[in-house]
């Protein structure tokens, strides 16, 4: 008897459970508008590219409809059918226009432009669509970047003009290099520490001295060139061209030497950074090992002792 009662109770429970699930599902689907009446419209286009079934139609940023069907007409055009729910039908009014938006980032969608004052469009009616010009759109998006690029080019031009002047930072730097090389050649202990070889140090000092001499020569020659080009006399054209060739060769030499110096300076800098990193790593490792030793001590010794014992 009691068993029958239990069976009835279980049966009631299962029944109630399924009824509740079904009712909840119905409510959810109803809320989502699944059972709402939908109104279909269509538009035609030359290509189905960028369109897909399920693609949203937006009004003021809200999804109000979706593309239901894409079909190829006999004349080669494409008929695209979309539908909107009953509550959104008012946005598909007479003279409304669709605009295909293809953003550079994100999925494409159709934007609806309509006036609420116009009466709703009859179901199944044709709606006009405008396909936006991709290249123009892209250019309009790239305009800020192009503006920035132009600014950069202008700035680079200004910088090069400034560098070419006599009182520029470049000339100051060249003077500083001379000072630096003088100092290095007077005291070679630092360089020997870096190179680890007295011969290598001497070679570097010689190279630097040569560089400094070439710098001075370059400056003189550049002044010569300036004078020559301002006069442009026939009799000095040939010497000036020689001077320019010489200048070119010297500049190449200077470039090579500066590159070598740059490499040395960079490598010294990188050693410094690496040493600092290694030091930090060692310090972190030591701290960790100390923590580990504390734990080992705690395991092997009296955990409750809080006073340092006097031996």
């Amino acid at each position, binding site marked *: 008897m009691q068993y029958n009662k239990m069976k009835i109770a279980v049966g009631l429970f299962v029944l109630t459970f399924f009824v509740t699930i079904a009712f909840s599902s119905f409510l959810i689907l109803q809320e989502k508008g699944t059972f709402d009446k939908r109104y279909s419209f269509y538009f035609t286009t030359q290509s189905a590219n960028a369109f897909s079934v399920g693609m949203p139609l937006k009004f003021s940023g809200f999804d109000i409809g979706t593309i239901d069907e894409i079909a190829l007409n006999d004349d080669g055009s494409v008929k695209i059918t979309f539908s909107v729910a009953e509550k959104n039908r008012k946005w598909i009014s007479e003279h409304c226009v669709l605009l295909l938006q293809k953003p550079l980032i994100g999925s494409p969608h159709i934007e609806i432009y309509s006036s609420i004052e116009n009466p709703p469009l009859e179901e199944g009616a044709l709606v006009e669509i405008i396909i936006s010009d991709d290249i123009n759109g892209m250019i309009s998006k790239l305009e800020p970047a192009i503006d920035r690029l132009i600014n950069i080019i202008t700035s680079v031009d200004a910088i090069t003009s400034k560098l070419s002047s006599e009182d520029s930072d470049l000339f100051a730097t060249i003077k500083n290099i001379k000072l630096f090389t003088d100092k290095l050649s007077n005291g070679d202990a630092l360089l020997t520490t870096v190179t680890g070889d007295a011969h290598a140090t001497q070679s570097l000092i010689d190279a630097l001295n040569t560089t400094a001499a070439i710098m001075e020569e370059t400056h003189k020659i550049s002044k010569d060139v300036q004078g020559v080009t301002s006069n442009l006399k026939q009799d000095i054209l040939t010497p000036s061209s020689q001077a320019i060739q010489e200048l070119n060769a010297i500049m190449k030499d200077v470039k090579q030497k500066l590159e070598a110096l740059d490499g040395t300076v960079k490598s010294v800098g990188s050693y410094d950074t690496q040493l600092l990193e290694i030091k930090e790593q060692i310090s972190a490792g030591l701290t960790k090992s100390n923590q580990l030793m504390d734990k080992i001590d705690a395991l092997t010794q009296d955990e409750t002792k*809080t*006073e340092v014992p006097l031996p």
Partner: protein
Amino acid sequence: MKLFSLLAFILLLGSGCSMQLPPNQWQIQSANAFESYTKNFLAGHDAVATGDLKRAIAHAKAGGDFESLARIYLGMCALRISVGRPDKCSEYQEIAEFTSDPSLKNYYTLLQNNTEAIEPSLLPRPYNSFAEHMQKKEYALAFASLEDAPISSKLIGAALLKEHLSIAQAENILESASFYGYKKSVLYWLGVLEELNESTSEKEAIRKKIEILKRR
């Protein structure tokens, strides 16, 4: 049953891993590190001992506890004295003004062998009767009082008594140090024995032993 045991083990492991450390962990860590230092110093593991000492000091400093720091410095000084390195405990003296525990100053007085100024009752227990006998100049009794003391106290006390020890007493201490494997103390007491022995052959034999033991 096996499953139950496994579950119990995992639970125990979990509870162990999640065990909260006491907030005064630094005190325990400092005490443990110093104890480790004591053993490693006497055993002659200098590199490890230095690390232990640094940890003990760092933990004491973490708590800003000058009493603990003073104990470490005094302990350090005592251990140096125990292996025959005279020490004025300068580290302790530097911070002595920030400590209020009279037993620390008393211990320092003992280490400086200023027996007249010692208050025996304020010393750590192993030294109570030792200090009393020292004040009475009863050196044999003072040495005997160290019999049951912890090995480190025994070595310190014996070092303070060095001038008054017989060869047998020095050998006794040497045996104790040897039993614990405290190489530094063994070497020191061998040196003391070399001084105490008058026989040239004995001296030579001890010197040879020291030389062999010092070799790596």
